[in-house]
């Protein structure tokens, strides 16, 4: 079957639309029950594939195969509660399903027609179980534009994407619109690059379109390297065609005929889905020669990364697409002028592309309705760390951190206190409590020393040591530095050495000054975004959590009890029940005590392994600072060097 014109596209849509309509909540008398199983990486690793097989078998046993169909679908974003299964009609949302639950699920829900209560989502605060996805607060508080198809369609069937109006935008543009018009719409929508610095997408398209050189290329940056960020992966796994369609639209607008998707090899599921999607699109003629009967040709090739974070930087990415070491080069010339093989190249990241079909279908006016003055539309964030509802969410730009962390995210785990959120991964900074109500957008984040980045949010509680966190990120960037320019190659190494000294209790007060100075210089002098932003985690923690640094350096303690060398293990005499487990656990015999007497730890003998801490049934062992730390407020000011064009799409 080939799709050569809009009519044929419509025919595909009509054939598959009933399935979709039911999933959207319409009771259309389809006489069919659809079971959607999340097949994202997180749910797959919790055995969603085994569940699917068992489900098929069980349906077969009950002779239900004709009336019940099972579909793979993309990530719902509620990863903490996976594997997730959704049943239509009814939008019944089952979570934490295990393979052994399948029998009951089929017996109770499909045969008897009753809900399996124990698998429904249970609100931790109210204790109430909610059957329908629409009533779960986690979803209600979101605005899903980019993730519109994740959980709704089977990503391995192009027809389902078409039934969701997919590829109609592309058809409309190729057949009825001029490139300039389209670029204008993108510009008016206010869409900014979702990968890092937030450069205007429309302007990027315009710059590339204006080049009088052929051939040109479109590249999709799917090298999502920020630890803790997985929005691009989820889009590729759940809705790959939206990216392909957008790339085709971009190619039409700038005058390219070849596209490349540069995807991390660490994402095998996403790679699979992309391969399937490209194959299917080629098969029905939505990629290849003469799309929709026009003379516009467009095809897409996949290029794999091989484990280098710096390849998220656009000039490094281009090197890697060409099979070279992913080393960035100075700009200008920009990729829009000289990119792949020296030709004009448009690079956008996955989430940016996923916005394009929506903007063009719904109109830029509606899109601009979401967001703040400078940042339009929605943003996908991945929530991770010490937060109850880890997972993927999409909210309008300008939503406050409080809403994200405490409302959608359900607050901090283990009843601990909020300490900070790290946004933007290794390129970003830590946001302390005082900014919880700040509307999140590009400008505000930059103002307070972080960046939007790709949208990873790592939530930290009082159990996290901010100095250790800075060291962790520095270790990451230092390890991922390409080694080309001096400040990043040697500078980050020296910064890391200072941080290690501090976390090991060897720091001096002068180290803090040297660290800060060096951070500024590395930020100002580095060649690419990786080096320019590498000091951000250090600078932002120095700015907001200087007291912790001073505690490490002057008082040789780690207030959060993370840095091993500085651990201060004590037994709370009130809580100790003298059970003696701690003394048994201690390998060096540092704990002594007698029956009915509180035990004691000999600090001279203690090697700070914290084995006792883990063993104590009464949580009577305390780690961390025994002393109060007094700090005078001394903050440095920094907001990132250069203009936005100087920042990479890290």
């Amino acid at each position, binding site marked *: 079957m080939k799709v050569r014109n809009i009519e044929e596209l419509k025919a595909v849509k009509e054939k598959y639309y009933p399935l979709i309509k039911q999933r959207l909540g319409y009771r259309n008398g389809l006489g069919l029950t659809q079971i959607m199983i999340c097949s994202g990486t997180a749910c797959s690793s919790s055995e969603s594939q085994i569940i699917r097989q068992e489900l098929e078998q069980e349906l077969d046993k009950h002779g239900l195969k004709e009336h019940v169909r099972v579909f793979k679908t993309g990530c719902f974003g509620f990863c903490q509660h996976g594997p997730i299964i959704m049943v239509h009609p009814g939008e019944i949302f089952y979570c934490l399903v295990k393979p052994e639950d399948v029998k009951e699920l089929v017996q109770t829900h499909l045969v008897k027609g009753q809900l399996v209560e124990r698998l429904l989502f249970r609100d931790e605060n109210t204790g109430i179980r909610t059957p329908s996805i629409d009533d779960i607060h986690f979803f209600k508080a979101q605005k899903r534009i980019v993730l519109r198809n994740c959980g709704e369609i089977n990503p391995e069937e192009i027809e389902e994407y078409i039934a969701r109006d997919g590829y109609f935008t592309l058809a409309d543009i190729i057949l009825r619109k001029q490139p300039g018009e389209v670029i204008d719409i993108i510009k008016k929508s206010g869409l900014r690059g979702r990968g890092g610095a937030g450069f205007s997408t429309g302007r990027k398209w315009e710059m590339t379109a204006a080049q009088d050189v052929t051939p040109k290329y479109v590249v999709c940056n799917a090298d999502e390297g920020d630890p803790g960020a997985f929005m691009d992966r989820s889009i590729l796994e759940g809705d790959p065609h939206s990216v392909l369609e957008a790339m085709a639209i971009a190619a039409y607008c700038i005058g390219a005929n070849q596209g490349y998707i540069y995807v991390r090899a660490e994402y095998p599921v996403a790679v699979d889905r992309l391969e399937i999607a490209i194959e299917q699109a080629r098969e029905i003629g939505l990629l290849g020669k003469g799309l929709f009967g026009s003379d516009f040709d467009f095809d897409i090739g996949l290029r794999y990364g091989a*484990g280098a974070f710096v390849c998220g930087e656009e000039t490094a990415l281009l090197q890697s697409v060409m099979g070279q070491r992913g080393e960035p080069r100075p700009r200008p010339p920009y990729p829009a002028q000289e990119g792949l093989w020296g030709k004009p190249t448009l690079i956008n990241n996955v989430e940016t592309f996923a916005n394009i079909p929506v903007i063009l279908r719904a109109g830029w006016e509606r899109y601009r309705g979401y967001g703040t003055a400078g940042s339009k539309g929605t943003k996908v964030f991945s929530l991770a760390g010490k937060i109850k509802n880890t997972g993927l969410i999409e909210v309008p730009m300008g939503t406050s951190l409080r809403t994200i962390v405490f409302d959608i995210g359900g607050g901090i785990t283990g009843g601990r206190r909020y300490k900070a959120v790290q946004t933007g991964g290794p390129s970003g900074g830590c946001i302390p409590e005082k900014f919880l109500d700040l509307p999140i957008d590009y400008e505000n984040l930059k103002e307070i020393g972080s960046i939007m980045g790709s949208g990873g949010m790592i939530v930290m509680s009082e159990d996290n040591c901010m100095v250790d966190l800075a060291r962790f990120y520095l270790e990451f960037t230092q390890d991922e530095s390409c080694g080309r320019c001096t400040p990043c190659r040697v500078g980050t190494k020296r910064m890391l050495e200072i941080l290690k000294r501090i976390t090991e209790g060897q720091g001096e007060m002068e180290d803090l000054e040297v660290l800060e100075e060096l951070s500024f210089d590395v930020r100002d002098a580095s060649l690419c975004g990786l080096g320019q932003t590498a000091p951000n985690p250090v600078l932002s923690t120095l700015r907001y959590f200087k007291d912790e640094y001073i505690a490490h350096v002057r008082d040789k303690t780690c207030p959060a009890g993370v840095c091993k060398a500085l651990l201060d293990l004590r037994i709370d005499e009130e809580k100790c029940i003298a059970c003696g487990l701690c003394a048994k656990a201690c390998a060096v015999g540092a704990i002594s005590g007698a029956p009915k007497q509180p035990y004691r730890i000999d600090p001279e003998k203690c090697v700070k392994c914290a084995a006792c801490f883990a063993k104590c049934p009464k949580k009577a062992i305390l780690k961390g600072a025994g002393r109060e730390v007094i700090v005078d407020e001394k903050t440095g000011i920094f907001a990132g060097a250069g203009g936005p064009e100087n920042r990479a799409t890290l």
Partner: protein
Amino acid sequence: MEPEIVKRQETGEKDYVNREQDNVAIRIKKPAAVKEADNKRERRYKDLDHVIEQYSREPGQLIRILHKAQDIFGYLPEDVQAYIAEKTETPVSEVNGVVTFYSLFSTEPKGKCTLKVCMGTACYVKGAQEIMDAIKEHLKVDEGETTADKLFTVKSTRCVGACGLAPVLVANDDVYGEAGAKDVVKIIHEYRKGEKIESSEH
């Protein structure tokens, strides 16, 4: 090969020795096991030829070829790198530069099971280091090393994107979410058992 200066111990006088002799192949009748190893090697190179054939027509596919070569050989020894360089007419320095740039390429052979502890931020703040420590303790190897029985290679890895399940341990392609130090021992044991079955079949 290049002549090389060697200093003679007795006289301290410098002389030039042609190292070419080192490379002279000695033809002896090969035992069956060696022959089989040779065949295996030959088969692998044949597979590699197909890969190179398939991808070298497109520009800039060196990384893809290296991925596939690593799938075939398990790692990328110098011979394989040089072979790819010759076949693709790329300078061997460039191939070696690319191989050593990307962390997914390995120039050392790996164990049957690669245990990767995700060191992404989410996993790290949830205690990935403890898992790593437990593995190192249990297998008595350091990060990046392979156990003496060639069963396990221990690595830390970049974020695998399963942050919702943090901390995450990846054993070959299986992802273990919310892993604890206790689970580590269980997982290692499972793989050991599997290996035992496999080796008794031989």
